[in-house]
Every structure is written in structure tokens, then in C-alpha cells.
């Protein structure tokens, strides 16, 4: 299991590289979106290891909050208000 955790941490660092380097703002937004999805998988593997359902609660709420954040950033990039 620790091998899988290590590989996911490697994926996370690739996303962080894109967040840091990405030439345009949508590049960074995509990388943050992918980072959120990776954290969902990370919490799922952690709940297999510890056998606690607490981490699945974290996983569900992280998926929904990451979606709301992505939509808000996309609206902001498009240059429109949030009430349209």
C-alpha cells in the first residue's frame, strides 16, 4: 500500500510543477482541479489502510468543494459575474 501512496505523491508533485510553471492562468486552474481529484483517491487509499470511514467523508466533501472551486475559477477566467 505504501508504494501506491508514494506513486500518488509523485503525481501530486507533477501537478504542483504545473501549478508553479504553467504559462497561463487556465493551466494553473486545470492543475488545481487535477490535484483535487488526486486527493480524493489519496483519501480513499488511506481509508483502506486505516479501515475508518472518516476519510471517505473527507473524500466526498473534497470532491464537491473542488468542483465548486473549479466552476468559480472558470467563471472568473471568462470575465463574467457570478450571478449570470
Amino acid at each position, binding site marked *: 500500500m505504501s508504494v501506491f501512496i508514494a506513486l500518488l505523491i*509523485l503525481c501530486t508533485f507533477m501537478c504542483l510543477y504545473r501549478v508553479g510553471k504553467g504559462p497561463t492562468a487556465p493551466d494553473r486552474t486545470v492543475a488545481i482541479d*487535477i490535484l483535487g*481529484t488526486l486527493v480524493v483517491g489519496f483519501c480513499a487509499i488511506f481509508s483502506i489502510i486505516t479501515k475508518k470511514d472518516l476519510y471517505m467523508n473527507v473524500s466526498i466533501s473534497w470532491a464537491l468543494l473542488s468542483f465548486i472551486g473549479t466552476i468559480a475559477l472558470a*467563471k472568473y477566467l471568462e470575465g463574467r459575474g457570478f450571478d449570470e
Partner: protein
Amino acid sequence: MSETVGLILLIIGIIFDLVGCIGLVRLPDIYNRLQAATKCVTLGTCMILLSVFFYTGLSSIGVKALLCLWFVLLTSPTGAHAIARAAHRSGIRLWEGSVMDKYAEDREGAEDKA
């Protein structure tokens, strides 16, 4: 038996996540990165959540994993679509090797009609 299936699904999911993140680092422009990373990482995370269900069965962890799989499957493509549309509308150019841009043609056609 179910632990074996769970382990196989977990390995497939991690491989998809890795390939998606390599695509996120390596590909040339925002639209290529978006399609590689979103498709691969969505499928990879769904495989990981399905493997959690196979590991734990119909317990509270397994049912929450299925619920989370449904949320990820529903929200991740929607978010990617919104980002691609926002990037195109905010004027980000395609990579110079791209051969067609259907969305720009559609928008020009709509503006001519209006």
C-alpha cells in the same frame, strides 16, 4: 477473491493517474493538457474508489466510496468543460501544430447570423 479484484483495480487506477499526470507535464498547450489529464485522472480515481468498494464490501466505507465515485464521474468532466470554454473565450491561442478549431468556427457563424 474480492481483495484480489480490488488490488488489480487499484493498480490500474494508479497507472492511469500516473499517465494523466505525465500528460499534464509533457503536452504542449492548455487544451491538450486538459483532455489528457482530466480523462485519465477521472478514470484512475474512479478505479481507486471502485477498488475501495471491492476491498471493504457493503460496509459504510464501501457505500461512501460508490457515492464518491458517482460525484467524481459527474463533476470532473463538467469542470473540465467549463475550464476549456473559459480558456477559449479569454483568448488563449491553440498550439501552432493544431489543425482545426471547430469552436471558433461555430462562434463566428453564430455572430454572423446575429
